[in-house]
């Protein structure tokens, strides 16, 4: 016998995930526009690996395939990993990263809903630690005239790691704007000199700043559609802005301005698509603010002083660890208990 309630509203998990995927589309479109279609190949590889690993793990764990494969959560993990690694990378890079994310970070921790760490960020972290070389060759934007490779040549490179005769990988690719900033600062240049380099655009990296704006656009849609809570992106971006702003005011030669931070690296995709993963973020409003602020602080610290060019992934993972604590600390008072101590 069923019991009440007998009716439900039908915004199911798969529909939520689907909307998140839709929200990634503007960013992906701009990615293709500026960097060519290689990213689509990466996404296809990562998604295939994600679904295959998900199916395999479900089978091993003796779980039904249909409901879990069709909830789009594995698919989303795949897309996010593809978006955080260089598109012109050997085929096994997205495949290994995604397989690790799904098999270890998701399923070994109990599957959907039970994983404490954001699988995509674990996948990314594993790759950047294990394959730092492959992870730093990013395509240059097409309008810089360096993308001399046709799609066929790119595919050829992705699957065989060989370039057409006479071409050098270094000539085709570049390190990320954040990476360049860090290296050049070490070499004694000032921020303003560095930003005159051809790879930089108006706010941050040429091309990549627009991709970040595309992700922000999708993120705003998610906020309006109430798919994600506002506290996380706001606290994260606010903290990042405030910290970088203060340091930039004090020492503009060595600290990049806030908007540079916002539109570089994974800040935007992180704010709207990664930190907001409900499974690995706090459940209370106050907790979300703390979590976002913590991630903002760590991202800034890693970017400014850490060993890696970008800090979003590690900031996310570190903050993921604090979630149970944050949740326990920030439990709200229930109806009729406002005046009392918990």
């Amino acid at each position: 016998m069923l019991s009440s309630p007998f009716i439900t509203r039908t915004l199911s998990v798969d529909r939520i995930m689907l909307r998140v995927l839709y929200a990634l589309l503007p960013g992906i479109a701009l990615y293709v526009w500026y960097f060519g279609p290689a990213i689509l190949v990466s996404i296809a590889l990562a998604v295939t690996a994600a679904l295959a690993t998900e199916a395999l793990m479900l089978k091993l764990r003796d779980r039904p395939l249909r409901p879990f494969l069709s909830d789009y959560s594995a698919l989303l993990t795949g897309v996010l990993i593809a978006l955080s690694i260089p598109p012109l990378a050997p085929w096994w890079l997205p495949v290994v990263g995604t397989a690790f994310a799904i098999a270890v970070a998701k399923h070994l921790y109990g599957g959907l809903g039970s994983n404490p760490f954001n699988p995509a960020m674990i996948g990314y972290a594993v790759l950047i630690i294990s394959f730092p070389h492959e992870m730093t060759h990013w395509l240059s934007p097409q309008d810089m005239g360096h993308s001399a490779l046709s799609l066929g040549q790119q595919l050829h490179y992705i699957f065989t790691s060989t370039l057409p005769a006479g071409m050098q990988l270094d000539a085709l690719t570049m390190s990320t704007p954040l990476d360049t900033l860090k290296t050049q600062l070490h070499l004694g240049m000032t921020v303003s000199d560095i930003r005159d380099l051809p790879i930089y655009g108006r706010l941050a990296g040429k091309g990549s700043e627009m991709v970040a704006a595309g992700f922000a656009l999708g993120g705003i849609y998610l906020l309006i559609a109430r798919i994600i809570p506002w506290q996380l992106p706001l606290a994260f971006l606010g903290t990042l802005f405030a910290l970088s702003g203060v340091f930039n005011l004090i020492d503009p030669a060595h600290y990049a301005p806030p908007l540079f931070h916002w539109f570089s690296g994974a800040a935007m995709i992180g704010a709207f698509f990664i930190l907001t993963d409900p499974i690995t973020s706090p459940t209370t409003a106050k907790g979300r603010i703390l979590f976002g602020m913590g991630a903002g602080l760590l991202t800034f610290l890693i970017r400014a002083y850490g060993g890696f060019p970008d800090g979003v992934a590690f900031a996310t993972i570190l903050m993921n660890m604090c979630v149970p604590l944050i949740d326990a600390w920030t439990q709200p008072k229930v109806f009729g208990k406002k005046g009392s101590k918990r």
Partner: protein
Amino acid sequence: MIKLRSFHGGVHPPTHKKESTQSPIMAAPLPAQLIIPFRQHAGEAAKPVVQVGERVLKGQLIGEPVGPISSSVHAPTSGTITAIELQQIAHPSALPDLCATLVSDGLEEWGVRQTLSYRQLSSDELQKHLRRCGIVGLGGAVFPSDMKLRHPTVVNTLVINGAECEPYITCDDMLMRERAEGIVRGIEILRHALGTDAVLIGIEDNKPQAITAMQRAVDESSHPFKVVAVPTLYPGGSAKHLIKVLTGVEVPSGKLPTDVGVQCYNVATAYAAHRAVEHGEPLVSRIVTVTGNVEQPRNYEALIGTPFSELVELSVAKADTNRYIMGGPMMGVELPAVNVPLVKASNCVIAASDVLFPPPPPAMPCIRCTRCAQACPVELQPQELYWFAKSHNFGKAQEYDLFDCIECGACAYVCPSSIPLVQYYRYAKSEIRARDHEKRAADLARERHEFRQFRIEREKQEKAERLAQKERAAAEAKAKAAATATVIATPVDPSADTDDTQQMRIDAALARAKEQAATTPPKNTETLSPAQRAEIEAIEERRAHIHELAADAGADDEPPKHSQGN
């Protein structure tokens, strides 16, 4: 204009109220046979005061209240009592309860109807009259109305609940549209008995006709009552939430509205009070919505004890109807059978089919999206409660205020993973209640056992002492005799000897007790095989189910803290 507040959360399920408000309230025809349960109210069941074979008149008392929280039960029509026995009632447990069967004689012959002029009456006298007339909260919680007039604190605001927030239900709406004058008179009676000044009548703004009718009736009565349109938001009709919206006061958890100077009655209860006082009619009928998968959804005025099947027949249930729900789709219960009788709590019966209420898709894991927490009107964290209930971490569940959950279903309504959250909460609550019960029983048993041990020990000691005394006396006598015989005899120290024997006896007793304790094996579940553990779990589950049924059956014993404003 009064300033309205809001409460956290709430949901907007489709209301489906239009269907059953197209035609006026219709008097249901007199059934040939009525089944009248003796427990139709919160508290003790009424005690039968009629004999099988006895002829009764309409409105005659057939069950009298037992104890302070109880109410009266009356014959809904004239006829003959043919049986007093256990019968199936409108309770999901399908457990039978004591009912009278009344075969009507078709005469509808009223017994004595004692009308009163309430202005001359004290609150006390009115309470007695309401109790005698079996008036209970008709919003669903059926708490005895006289009890709610008895309060130690000053009550300065009377809130009248006409919110009717549950989808499908329209009995209060139609009552307000058609009988606003009677409701207003009833409100004045309750206000008089409570001695309050302010009266706020809260009606959700999706019932404009009811609001107009009530406003007109208030204007004509020239009582200074305020009719207030409140925003339509489920569960805005929960008494505590309506009070919050209308007065801004949040009734503290575990407290009653009267503790903050407010009392709350449902519109239908006010109407019943009016009928009882000014017409001398006990509560023998009520308005009930019959809707859902039927050809002619509408409201009926039906006698208490009318089998639901007769009402459903009047409205013509469609062919694919496969179950019936008493109450609304958010908080209602599935009827164990359609021929169970209408009771005072029955505000609505919904014919349901798999098309109307499709079975939910299989539950997915919780993704911690907190849509449930955003919907919860009590500001709970349903996802945490779910986690604790699922992992049998009941202590934590209580710490996270499980017992403040009003089981409104808003959380389950929005859950994207289709988790039957409320079921988990009901299960956890009943399990905690059962464990408390067991613990009390175990404590009692332990205390008894300890006392018994203590008594046995004491008796033994006393015996030993008596023995020692005897020995001492004997020794003394011997010593005396010896002393008189030979002056040089060395007297033994008798007390040392007896102390020793006594100590030895106590030691022996203690050793026995220890031995006994050691032979009671500890419940060692760690060493069991998985299969054995699974078996134990299965047994526990069965036991839990029984507990649940038992707890459900007993749940009515507690005064409901969060009623739909009865």
